């Protein structure tokens, strides 16, 4: 499996602003900001003047499960006084939970559109930290013989998608429409990991998930690439919901070069 690395696209204004802001924030937190020269950095965001304390509650999109587990572990190792609690679900579920008062300090979502229903008063800061594209996951045996997106139209192939309400479902619908493919959809699962699970168990012949999910599945599923002409790219925002120092340091770590390389090692693209 190769890690897809999209070329850095710093030309767009929001990305540039986000990058600047990230630098500023990182500087305030006493951490080394994202640097393009790849210079050696202190582990997990560096050392703050006073040791950080407390709990950072992170709600993250299901597709971020493996990468945020790794981020949380590294951050906790660098800041022994901080506990990072992670919870994963569909972005739609998480936003609805936060709107209903779920105690969260950080929200990381699949796609900027997912943040739309979020109560605007809650978000203190929003930055893009990664991107993802869709990919078809098939069981290693691939009995249905799916080698391209057009093969999803085979009536005998049981295809599982994410629910229309969650980002991976919306993206899959857009991509299938662009490719003019009408698959035999047998289930619309509540989040991307539930969708992937049906292929892991070989109950479904194919699922439209993210490239990162195929990478994270580590060989328990096979990936079939979707051409970029019909693929849907999602930018992943990290939203700060709390003002406390540990939360800010965690977000700065996610945005740091080290954080990004962790996330990208799980198959995500650059923001």
């Amino acid at each position, binding site marked *: 499996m190769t890690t897809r690395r999209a070329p850095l696209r710093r030309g767009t204004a929001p990305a540039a602003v986000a990058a600047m802001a990230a630098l500023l924030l990182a500087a305030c937190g006493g951490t080394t900001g994202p640097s393009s020269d790849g210079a050696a950095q202190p582990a997990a965001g560096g050392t703050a003047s006073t040791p950080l304390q407390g709990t950072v509650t992170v709600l993250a999109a299901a597709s971020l499960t493996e990468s945020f587990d790794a981020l949380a572990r590294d951050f906790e190792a660098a800041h022994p006084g901080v506990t990072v609690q992670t919870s994963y679900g569909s972005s739609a579920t998480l936003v609805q939970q936060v709107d209903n008062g779920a105690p969260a300090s950080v929200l990381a979502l699949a796609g900027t559109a997912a943040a739309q229903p979020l109560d605007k008063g809650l978000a203190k800061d929003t930055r893009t930290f990664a991107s993802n594209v869709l990919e078809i996951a098939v069981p290693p045996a691939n009995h249905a013989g799916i080698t391209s997106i057009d093969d999803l139209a085979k009536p005998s192939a049981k295809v599982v998608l994410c629910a229309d*309400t969650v980002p991976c479902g919306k993206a899959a619908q857009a991509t299938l429409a662009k490719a003019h493919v009408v698959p035999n959809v047998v289930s619309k699962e509540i989040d991307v990991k539930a969708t992937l699970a049906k292929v892991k168990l070989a109950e479904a012949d194919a699922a439209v998930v993210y490239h990162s999910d195929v990478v994270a599945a580590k060989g328990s599923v096979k990936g079939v690439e979707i051409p970029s002409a019909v693929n849907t790219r999602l930018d992943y925002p990290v939203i700060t919901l709390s003002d406390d120092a540990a939360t800010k340091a965690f977000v700065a770590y996610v945005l740091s070069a080290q954080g990004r390389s962790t996330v990208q090692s799980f198959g995500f693209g650059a923001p």
Partner: protein
Amino acid sequence: MRYAATWRSRVTLGLPAALALLLLVVPLVALLLRADWARIPSDLATPSVVPALRLSLTTTSTTALLCLLLGTPLAWFLARSDSRATSWVRALLTVPLVLPPVVGGVALLMTWGRNGVVGQYLTPLGIQIPFTTVAVVLAETFVAMPYYVLAVEGAMRGLDPRLEHVARTLGAGDLRYLRTVGLPLVLPGIAGGLALAWARALGEFGATITFAGNFPGRTQTLPLLVYVELERDPQVAISISILLLAVSVLVLGVLRGRWLR
């Protein structure tokens, strides 16, 4: 009252009791308060609700029928035997009752799935259970059948054993005794058990979403739709919840009338 109720006992017992009542009642009231009553009829007629309603009705009715046809004989065997094996069977029957439904879903997938213990022999025959309406019925039956069997067994144990004895001396076999004496007498128990099992099947979520998936018109029952709609249009989710709440109250009415006396 024979014993004077002191203010202390009133407070120490009354306070937790009131708290318990509030914990249970406030959420139901909240649901009613948040409902947009004028919207409920139109919400329940939306394109996503109608197929889910139809699916829920057909699958729960099939489940109730399966309980009746398969569960009644099982209840009868349990009721007339006091052997050690019977108590083991009863204990086994209680497991799905207390098992988290999602675990039931995983177990069903391991049984009927493509590579499942039973499913692997069905696949070559072209029979696939997961993601079908059959899977919904299997999931609902898995969680609902124990309620039915235990309720009917209880009713059957309440029968006067002399009735069966008399029927036997008059030459009636098992089937004839059941048809003419046993079953008519436990009819209230059967009705109560059916209502309980049906209500449990109607509320099934965990096993269904794990085993049968979530596809509109095929496996998306009302509880699954509530979950999905909460992300799309919370008001529709509340309207469906009100419907399910009304059905629950209705079932309670049936139970009070026929089963709980």
